[in-house]
């Protein structure tokens, strides 16, 4: 049981408490990281309401909603995986984590499809932007923010997928047990953070237009 205890800690609960607090503090910095983009989004939307509504109408509501559903499901399955390891069911825990990672990949693929569509429609500022009309300029601001926010989020998903696969492998090898599963729990927290960020991105990007 003490194999996982680093020598500068007194006992496993202290180590666990430190790890959890550290992870939550890290989450706070990540939230703030995205918070800056949220602030930029809100300010720009306040300045250009019409352009943002137009831009939002150019996004793919159906694909976006499916992506959201996929991500929400993956968060649940990851939480189930944590429960399984607490119940000492290593095989099903491993399976749950692999499914979570697969759903993460599915999310990335779906979002990549959106990017491809947008390329064809000419919605990517400076790369291929073919919009004209009164709101084209302010819509460009919307799409700048869209790419920065979704790009950064996709990067986090990608990191999350890699992290989950590492954790899945460690679970398969039996590194975790009901006595020690901190890395798994921390990976779950990270994945939920990615989830929550997307929960706020979804209405901002896809639901800012109206009357589909």
């Amino acid at each position, binding site marked *: 049981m003490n194999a996982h205890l*680093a*020598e*500068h*800690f*007194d006992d496993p609960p*202290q180590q666990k*408490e*430190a790890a959890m*607090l*550290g992870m939550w*503090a*890290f989450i*706070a*910095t*990540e939230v*703030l*990281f995205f*918070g*800056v*983009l949220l*602030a*930029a989004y809100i*300010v*720009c939307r306040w*300045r*250009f309401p019409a*352009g943002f509504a137009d831009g939002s109408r150019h996004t793919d509501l159906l694909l976006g909603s499916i992506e959201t559903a996929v991500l929400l499901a993956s968060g649940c399955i990851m939480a189930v995986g944590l429960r399984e390891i607490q119940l000492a069911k290593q095989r099903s825990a491993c399976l749950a984590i692999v499914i979570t990672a697969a759903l993460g990949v599915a999310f990335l693929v779906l979002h990549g499809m959106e990017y491809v569509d947008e390329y064809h429609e000419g919605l990517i*500022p*400076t*790369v291929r932007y073919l919009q004209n009309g009164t709101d084209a*300029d*302010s819509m*460009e*601001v919307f799409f*700048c*923010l869209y*790419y*920065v926010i979704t790009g950064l989020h996709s990067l986090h998903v990608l990191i999350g997928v890699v992290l989950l696969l590492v954790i899945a492998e460690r679970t398969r090898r039996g590194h975790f047990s009901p006595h020690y599963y901190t890395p798994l729990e921390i990976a779950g927290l990270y994945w939920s953070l990615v989830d929550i960020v997307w929960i706020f991105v979804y209405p901002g990007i896809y639901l800012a237009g109206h009357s589909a």
Partner: protein
Amino acid sequence: MTDVFVRDSPLRRSYLWQGGHTLRSWLLSTDHKRIALLYAASITLFFFLGAVAAALMRLTLIDPQGRLMSAETYNKTFTFHGVVMVWFFLIPSIPATLGNFLVPLMVGARDLAFPRLNLFSWYLYMVGGLFTIACLLLGGVDTGWTFYTPFSTMFSDSHVILAVVGVFVVGFSSILTGLNFIVTIHTMRAPGMHWYRLPLFIWGIYATSIVMMLATPVLAMTLCLIGLERLFGVGIFDPSLGGDPVLFQHFFWFYSHPAVYIMILPAMGVVSELICCGARRRIFGYRFMTWSLLGIAFIGFLVWGHHMFVAGQSMYASMAFSILSFIVAVPSAIKVFNWVSTLYRGTIDFHAPMLYALGFIGLFMLGGLTGLFLAAVALDVNLTDTYFVVAHFHYIMVGGSVMAYLGGIHFWWPKITGRLYSERMAQLAAVLMFIGFNLTFFPQYLLGYMGMPRRYHQYPPQFHALNVLSSIGAVVLAISYLMPLFYFARSLRSGASAGPNPWQAAGLEWMTSSPPPEHNFVETPVVTEGPYAYHEHEEQA
């Protein structure tokens, strides 16, 4: 020399010896004390790099025509000075060196909560530093340390990206350091060490760590956006694409104003330790001191708009930020009054650390009070972008943080190295620093008040005399910065053994041997009383 070290037995039982003595054993060490020394060496290097830039500027300004360098070179020089001094010296100075060394010792722990993360953040610091040096070698950057848009994104043709990447990386180093401290202070205190028994240094580091974590990500993201604007033409700050440069200033100062508190809060912690030991008194108003630290940390987040009074910010926002800026002076004043009250009826010993601490109080007070001038909108419209701002900032940062940092280094030097240094040389350096500092920067208040703008290498002849005076002061200041290098080097070679507690100071770090053993304490200490129990001990005696 090696023979002396070998025979020196306290040294053989210390972290300096036990962890091995190859270069590899230092570069891969996860011991917080060794990492503190890695930081100390690297920030000293950057300090002198930044100081060379400052010296070049003062040299240029001796001559009203500024013939020593072109306007462009001058721009690059003050940018380099600012970037290096803010991110590579001041921000990591006290937290990453003294904090790293002392936090586990003071709370009675064997190490920080995440030792490998701690080493990793030093490597991040070095990578960031390499980017900055690369930027300098390739020709430098001319935007000022503030990277204001649209100049930094649309017009500057210098190496903005490299500089921004360097600062971005070092930002993560400070986030991770802060995270490590917060977790350590929360979870790893020794038995009996409850919150109100923590030394004020720990409270200062704690408040700073919170600010590091709640501000630095904003800087990182903002710098990311600058990079994206330059590389891909993303138009969030670019007015020609509909963006707003003032939005950059909002984001930048949301970090950079609290960053000032990252630099000063640990300095306040250090000074509290120094004052109590030097006056042999319990700190006056301990709980007020702790809450004023947290108060400054919190209110410090609500004042960033006072950097933007003339930037096109709305009048009402300026009024709100101005009032909040006045409010942040209240907890700062509480601290000054409490330090002075601690001195009252104390048995004051004017040893070198105490001289630095007393210098800190005076200079911090002058810097803080002139901050109130700048917080008043009507005055700021006149004083902004003049040397008055430069002087105010340097009184807080150099007169405040650097004095406290050096005071702390002198105070804990015997603990870190196990050796004593020449007390008289150190006292001389401290006094010289106070004189040199005032000589350098007080004329700049006057220059700014008379209307001399900052960031120019030429100026009208009526400002000549005061500029020369300031440059002379810079020479004195430079001497006082170089002096410690010599007497500390001599102390390392041939200093007398310090013993565990040369100052007869209170605090857990003085209960273990000097230098401390690898895991700090032979057995985990149990704390039974609050900090600074000087008074009681003397009464009992």
